[in-house]
């Protein structure tokens, strides 16, 4: 996966590509794309984001969790 990517050069950060200027912690739909079904934050190697956007998304996810918009832990309902 990574090797094919390395040969082609790094993929461009999806957030930079959309020229996203403001990652909103209240937008749980968008944030949902960056968490696993378990509710974990996707690492950069999966999300493909640049360092700056990864940090912003991470912060936004943590705020969203605090406000009960997204779960801290998901998908273990018995």
């Amino acid at each position, binding site marked *: 996966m990574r090797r094919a990517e390395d040969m082609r050069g790094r993929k461009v950060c999806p957030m*930079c590509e959309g*020229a996203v200027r403001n990652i909103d912690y209240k937008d749980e739909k968008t944030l949902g794309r960056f968490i696993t079904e378990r509710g974990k934050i996707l690492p950069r190697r999966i999300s493909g984001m640049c360092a700056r956007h990864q940090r912003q998304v991470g912060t936004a996810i943590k705020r969203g969790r605090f406000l*009960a918009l997204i779960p801290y832990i998901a998908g273990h309902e018995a």
Partner: protein
Amino acid sequence: MRDYEIVYIFGPALEEEQVTERLDRFHGLLTGTNGGEITATDHWGRRQLAYEVEGQTSGYYVVEHFRAPGEALPEFERALKLDENVLRYLVVVNEGDLPTTPVPPRERREDESEDDSEG
């Protein structure tokens, strides 16, 4: 004076009227002699919570933007903490848009063909 954004989560038992009443009371701690102003109030209304907060499964969300001097906040937040109907709240400094990074144009490699098959 700074721009802030606040999200309140009130208990689900409250009606819109009661929420507005409380907000007015809280606003008093920011506006008037304290020199702040409320610039926007958005009632999201009742929403399912992603997990239980204080035994509740839903809450009444309100998002507000306001300008206020930082000194007014401790008093304001104390009032929020004292109100049992506020399940949770979050105040963040509203920094507006973040700087963009220019995106390098997608360069096509010379040997990149239409079929795009990777070995």
